[in-house]
């Protein structure tokens, strides 16, 4: 076995001294050192009888020659780069690097980095340097591979500590980078695969809820994608199978017509695990403040909404002043109730009802009724509900909620309600899994650092600050980290950085990074990330493989979205999920005289109630029709006897 060759030597001068956190070393010109390379310094003199070892990561590089002035080189070339004489000797040149200390062994006494020999870190060194040895040891393995560190021939998997990624010690992950360079979404998909593979059994079950906010990014997570040999090697090194996710469930609201699902995953071949997402009045009213701004919700309006939630919703409500008792379960019912209340007030010529002023009642009616229009497709007038399986979440399952084609208000509503429900169930420990990773892209939009306070931002802050105790973990991505609320990013224990924009890097949040690190960040290749993690005292660069799932644009090309279905085919598709024996002919017969609204209402009712006898419950919504019969040929009288040929009165 050949001895490991030194890479460089530590140097220090009065002007550029070494400190306990930073040191300098020079290398040969052809050394494989670069920004982000991890090195090990072996000290020269023992301290307390032990030769100190110091681990560091290269953060800056310098190079110069013995030229005192650039002008001297100009003179040496007679001012002409093209006609330069042949130099027989290259000038003396230095490669000097600055490294930030990752770890001292022994840790005490903490001294300036000693003069010594510098070696490239091998896999074992990387493990020690990043303090991964603490959570990779036998018996307490909580490492989650995030990628592979590669430098100078060293390949070392880099592990995040599950206790600090999923909780409870720290939690949450924030990823930032410019759009279009396959960092954010790909990295999260890869990391979820890694988590599902390596999340320790003793820590319990885990699922992921991903909000697909743009395009088809997350629409094909259960289909295999193209990866190359380099990717396979990375998968192998990280011990993650290069396969798509086993269990993925998709949820999407309807389009505004209430017929077709509002998702790019609408190809017939892929609909098996796509479920409509529709909510009724009860679900929406709980989160009314998401859709109503501060002008809408003053104290009076808030009081009326609370009154409705507590006394009207899902109950039989009777008032002597009203024409009839009301049982409000849908927006349609609520509107009828409002009409009755307002009619009664007009009749009495009164200005208030049960302390609620008529203007407030009109305002709240207007705003709430409007919700079903603003969120058409998601909110059903008739109270139909099709929801995520809160209470029966499955381990290692990804629940994708496709909100890419949904209006902004509806996106906010979906986001707020789903996350709140997750939190409620996790608090009660009855979600079905013990940990949930919520992936939210475009955090700039949902939790901006400035702008008005919104319900969604408050909720994200709440998750960021308290979620780790519940097992609710936020994986958030955005293009500009500097524009996200500081408490959201500040509470992210782990941060990933892909290719960064120069303007973003110029913001104060990146002041701790050296110019060389910034330059590297601004030029990162696809598949490379800079990782910050509580155990790592300095950012580390890693490579990660392409996720083994079908990319969005490939999925759209291979599984083009279905043409807008007819009402009957859409309803048939839904009903067949409950009763595969139903035929189009039967459906057409049953709904022959029904309007579109009546058919959709019947479908929603069936979806909500999931009856045993689907045909019976569905057909009960329609007027009875006379059974079709083939018209019988009427009896015709016997023909008259033919007259005589010479009958003078004949025609």
């Amino acid at each position: 076995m050949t001895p490991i060759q030194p890479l460089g030597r530590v140097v220090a001068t009065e002007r550029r001294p070494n400190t306990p956190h930073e040191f300098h070393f020079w290398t040969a010109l052809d050394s494989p050192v670069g920004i982000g390379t991890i090195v090990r310094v072996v000290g020269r003199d023992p301290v307390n009888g032990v030769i100190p070892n110091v681990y560091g990561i290269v953060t800056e590089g310098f190079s110069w020659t013995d030229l005192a002035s650039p002008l001297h080189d100009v003179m040496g070339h007679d001012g002409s780069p093209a006609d330069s004489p042949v130099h027989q000797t290259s000038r003396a040149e230095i490669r000097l690097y600055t490294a930030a200390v990752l770890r001292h062994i022994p840790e005490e006494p903490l001294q300036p980095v000693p003069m010594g020999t510098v070696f490239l870190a091998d896999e074992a060194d990387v493990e020690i340097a990043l303090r991964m040895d603490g959570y990779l040891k036998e018996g307490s393995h909580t490492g989650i591979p995030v990628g592979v560190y590669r430098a100078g021939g060293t390949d070392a998997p880099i592990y995040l500590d599950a206790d600090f990624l999923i909780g409870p010690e720290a939690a949450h992950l924030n990823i930032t980078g410019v759009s279009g360079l396959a960092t954010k979404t790909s990295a999260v998909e890869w990391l979820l695969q890694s988590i599902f593979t390596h999340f320790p059994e003793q820590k319990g079950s885990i699922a992921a809820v991903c909000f697909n906010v743009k395009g088809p990014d997350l629409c094909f997570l259960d289909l295999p994608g193209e990866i190359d040999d380099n990717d396979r090697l990375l998968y192998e090194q990280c011990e993650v199978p290069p396969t798509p996710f086993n269990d993925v469930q998709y949820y999407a609201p309807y389009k505004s017509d209430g017929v077709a699902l509002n998702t790019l995953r609408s190809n017939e071949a892929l609909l098996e695990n796509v479920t409509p997402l529709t909510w009724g009045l009860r679900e929406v009213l709980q989160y009314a403040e998401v859709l109503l701004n501060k002008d809408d919700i003053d104290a009076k309006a808030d009081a009326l909404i609370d009154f409705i939630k507590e006394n009207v919703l899902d109950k039989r409500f009777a008032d002597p002043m009203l024409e009839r008792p009301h049982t409000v379960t849908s927006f349609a019912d609520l509107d009828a109730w409002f009409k009755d209340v307002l009619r009664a007030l007009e009749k009495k010529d009164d200005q208030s009802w049960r302390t609620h002023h008529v203007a407030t009642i009109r305002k709240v009616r207007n705003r709430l009724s409007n919700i079903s229009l603003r969120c058409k497709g998601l909110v059903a007038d008739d109270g139909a509900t099709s929801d995520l399986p809160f209470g029966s979440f499955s381990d290692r399952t990804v629940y994708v909620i496709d909100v890419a084609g949904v209006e902004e208000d509806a996106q906010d509503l979906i986001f707020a309600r789903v996350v709140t429900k997750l939190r409620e169930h996790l608090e009660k420990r009855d979600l079905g899994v013990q940990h949930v990773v919520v992936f939210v892209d475009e955090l700039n939009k949902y939790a901006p650092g400035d702008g008005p306070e919104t319900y969604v931002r408050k909720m994200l802050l709440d998750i960021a600050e308290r979620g780790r105790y519940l097992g609710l973990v936020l994986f958030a991505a955005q293009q500009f980290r500097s524009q996200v609320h500081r408490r959201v990013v500040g509470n992210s224990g782990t941060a990933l950085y892909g290719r960064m924009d120069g303007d973003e890097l110029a913001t104060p949040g990146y002041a701790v990074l050296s110019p060389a690190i910034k330059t590297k960040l601004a030029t990162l290749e696809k598949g490379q990330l800079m990782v910050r993690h509580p155990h790592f005292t300095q950012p580390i660069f890693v490579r990660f493989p392409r996720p083994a799932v079908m990319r969005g644009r490939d999925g759209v090309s291979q599984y083009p979205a279905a043409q807008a279905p007819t009402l009957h085919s859409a309803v048939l598709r839904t009903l067949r999920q409950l009763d595969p024996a139903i035929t189009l002919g039967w459906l057409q017969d049953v709904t022959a005289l029904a309007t579109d609204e009546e058919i959709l209402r019947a479908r929603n009712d069936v979806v909500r109630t999931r009856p045993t006898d689907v045909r019976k419950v569905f057909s009960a919504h329609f007027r009875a029709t006379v059974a079709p019969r083939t018209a019988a040929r009427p009896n015709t009288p016997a023909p008259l006897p033919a007259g005589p040929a010479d009958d003078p009165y004949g025609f």
Partner: protein
Amino acid sequence: MKLRDLQRQLAALLPDARAAGGESALELLSQGNDAPRLISATLLEEGLFRAQPVVGAPVPAFRAFLDGTQKTVVASYTGGGVALLSGSVAAVVRQRRDNRLYTWRAPVVETRIYAPRAHLASVTWSTLEEHYSGVLVDTTAGATDLIAHPFALRDAAIQKVRSHREQMEQRLAEQWCDAERDPLLIDGGISGSARVATSEIAVGVVKSHFTLYVHNDNLRTVLSLKHRERSSVFRIPSASRSTVASWYLRLRDPSGHDPLWGLVRAEIAIPDALEMANIGKRADEVSQWVLAEVSPLALPDSRWDKMVYGVRDCEEYLRAIA
């Protein structure tokens, strides 16, 4: 030996001695440059002494460069005010591989202690001799007319250190000539060592011109040499040193500079009688080698007009280690 260590030792050995304050090299202060001289030399090339262009393009033939450094500092003063000096010399051969320079074998670094025995108390000298046997040098040895003026004593010491340095350089040059076959460029003359002065692969390049080996018209010829011109080859005889062949060569365009700007004197071994007729061609060949070394410039060294980069590299290397 580090200066501080020496000063501590001297303080212990000589109770009345006091350590010197600074570490300035005395070479920077010395006025003891050689006096300017003009010496006649015998022409080796046929015809009159003349300027002639170096024919042909520069040829990179040197595989190594040799230079040495010296540094003389006052370590202590005796009770009588006599300076005890530390003189360090170093020499190195830097070998060129793939356009980069690397150290050939090991550099030579030596330190000696210089003291004027004639001006020291005998007990002081004997104490020094007892402790520094082998590295103690009497700067008054062989000097009959050396006065006790501190500057005179200092200059005498510097001469001894210079002599030591030349010995080191010659030792390395001899090793090269014995071991290698490729040309070696030596900073300075080659006549100090008979082995080197007769080697075909040793070329001396002299930058200083306190002694010019020309007179009258020949001097004018040398001072008016143009860029890439050389003088005729002449012989430099010496009673104490070896005889060598030499010529002047203008490395750079002197326009706008003094007449000695960019002027060097090359030294090579005297060819045997059969080859003597081709001494001019040999001078052209070696001149092509030297001219190939004018780039990169040896800046920021102030002698860059005459110094080749390989020699500067030697000096920088020795400055780092000595």
